[in-house]
């Protein structure tokens, strides 16, 4: 009997034994559905964190030199915090020696920021805005462009001219229905001239990235960013490629250790935060989640397998006479074996496909009603179908071999 024939026979049997088949399908279907849905949700959470959150904070192939990491996803213990707190702050005068050792083509920027109050004579009340003092290639590294006006000139950076580039939220609040360019805005009471408006940077976890303002680092607001005006929050460094970044980080480390006069035995008292290091905790967590996401459905599939096996055993018992007859008419042992295995694996595969369908639907619903960009992982679909069919085959083997070993006379007499 050829394989096509076997599948046709299996489908026939499944069609005629609808109820039984439906129960069999359900076990596999639910398992696979969970697999697809859980994996896609975990992936969605990962993508959300990567693209929407960390991706917006840390540019590609870049790292931030800081006194301590500022993106911590929950895995910092007390002792570490204690150590973080005691660290020396980064100073503006350390930027030049670091910049000195950067390979050609490397961009860098100085960052110091704080939540400051902004007012204008055109809008309602004061607005608390994240104001960042920047210098260097900040806008290039962030690939941040203005939709209106311009960015600060080198001269303005050098002189610390009170000019400001504001985000769309600030425009909306402080300059309702007005073109803000060249108008005055006050940052903590000090007047600044608006020279540009940035494009929107979106939001994550309900937090807007558009409630921002950028001023030259040397502008008067510098005094308000940190306890001392020479302190900076970070130096942002971007390599032309991922490969060069490692080398650059090594060089920066060496300079910083020298500047901080660290002895070889001492640990770094500064942090170089990459997108990966920021996501380290998430990556660890994601591993557990995927594991749980696979283990749970796996349990469901085992239950499904047991159900299929039992149903197949009942089917073999019920169809003893049929098996005997088929053998009497010339079916070999392997014909009977393949008939039952194909039947079980077809059930498994059909159940798996239904599970994939439902899993995809769940992922789509999650995408629609939550901010998670759930994405069905192709590998989970393949795994689901393979595992579903596999469960069918495995749970079909034992009943099938029992069936194939039936003695035709005994089997015939079973009617």
């Amino acid at each position, binding site marked *: 009997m050829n394989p096509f024939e076997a599948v046709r026979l299996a489908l026939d049997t499944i069609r005629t034994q609808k109820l039984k088949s439906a129960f069999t399908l359900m076990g596999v279907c639910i398992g696979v559905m969970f697999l697809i849905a859980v994996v896609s949700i975990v992936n969605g959470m990962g993508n959300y964190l990567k693209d929407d959150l960390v991706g917006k904070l840390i540019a590609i192939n870049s790292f931030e030199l800081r006194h301590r990491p500022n993106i911590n996803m929950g895995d910092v213990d007390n002792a570490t915090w204690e150590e973080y707190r005691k660290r020396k702050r980064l100073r503006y005068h350390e930027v030049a020696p670091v910049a000195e050792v950067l390979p050609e083509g490397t961009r860098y920027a100085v960052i110091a920021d704080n939540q400051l109050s902004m007012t204008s004579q055109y809008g309602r009340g004061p607005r608390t805005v994240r104001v960042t003092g920047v210098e260097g290639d900040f806008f290039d590294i962030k690939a941040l462009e203005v939709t209106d006006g311009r960015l600060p000139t080198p001269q303005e950076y050098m002189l610390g001219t009170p000019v400001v580039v504001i985000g769309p939220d600030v425009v909306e609040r402080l300059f309702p229905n007005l073109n803000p360019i060249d108008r005055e805005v006050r940052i903590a009471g000090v007047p600044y001239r608006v020279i540009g408006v940035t494009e929107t940077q979106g939001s994550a976890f309900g937090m807007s990235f558009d409630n921002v303002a950028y001023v030259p680092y040397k502008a008067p607001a510098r005094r308000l960013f940190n306890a001392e005006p020479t302190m900076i929050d970070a130096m942002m460094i971007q390599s032309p490629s991922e490969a060069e970044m490692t080398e650059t980080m090594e060089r920066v480390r060496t300079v910083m250790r020298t500047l901080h006069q660290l002895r070889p035995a001492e640990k770094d008292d500064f942090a170089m935060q990459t997108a990966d290091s920021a996501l380290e905790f998430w990556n660890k967590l994601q591993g557990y989640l995927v594991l749980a996401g696979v283990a749970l459905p796996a349990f469901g599939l085992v239950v499904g397998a047991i159900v299929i096996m039992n149903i197949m055993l009942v089917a073999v018992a019920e169809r003893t006479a049929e098996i005997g007859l088929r053998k*009497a008419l*010339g079916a070999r042992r392997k014909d009977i074996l393949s008939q039952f295995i194909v039947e079980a694996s077809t059930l498994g595969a059909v159940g798996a496909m239904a599970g994939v369908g439902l899993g995809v639907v769940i992922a789509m619903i999650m995408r629609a009603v939550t901010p998670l960009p759930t994405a069905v992982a192709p590998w989970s679909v393949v795994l689901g179908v393979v595992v579903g069919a596999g469960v069918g085959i495995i749970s079909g083997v034992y009943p099938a071999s029992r069936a194939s070993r039936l003695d035709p006379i005994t089997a015939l007499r079973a009617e």
Partner: protein
Amino acid sequence: MSNTIDDIGISTTGERRAVVSVPGTTPDPDWVIVARGLKREYDMGGEIVRALRGVDLAIRKNEYVAIMGPSGSGKSTLMNLIGCLDSPNGGEYWLNGMLVSAMSDDQLARVRNKEIGFVFQTFNLLPRATALQNVELPLVYAGIPADERKRRATEALDSVQLGPRLHHRPNELSGGQRQRVAIARALVNRPSILLADEPTGNLDSTTSQEIMRVFENLSRQGQTVVMVTHEPDIAAHARRVVVLRDGIVESDERRERFVDRVGISHATTKVAHD
């Protein structure tokens, strides 16, 4: 060979004795069935049931043989051995010059598929399959492609006058029709023997006569037929009657002698021959 017209399809006692008597020799392929000292014992938890105790039987091509005997005499056991559904504990069984008693499971399956057509007392049709699908079954295991299967199965059903019932399921057919589907299925692979274990056992007498007419026609067309029955008037349709008792052949004779011996009215047998 001095067979008269009447003798066509009947081997003589002498010929049979000759072919059965020398163990180990390959019979002439003209002999469809040659059993020499065939034994089949069942071990029922220590107690040995000797169902067949050394059966000698030779059946030549075109013969139409009935096997009779009291209940428990070993008729079904013998049919299962002849039909390659079972293997003997002793003796040898040659089918078309092939030593079946030495075959593997898969070879036996192949022989059942190609050489044997089975008709059962209880019809044994697949209840959910149509007449056509039931008849196609042996062809499926013979690896015949679907369109040819359909053509041959239709042909076989036509030959038993079931052409208009191709797509009926067994529960939509009468007992006689079901048995004719079973006969079509048995014949569809053009087997060298048609084996029937009490083919009329579940049928009323009119329907039984109908089935006997089908067998008679097949026999006339050259089909070798072996059937088990315990009704003498059914047995009387065959040309040769073998009687088993306690697992051995008690008698093996022409129909006419059997009819005379057991005294069946000539009328009954006559009807069947027209």
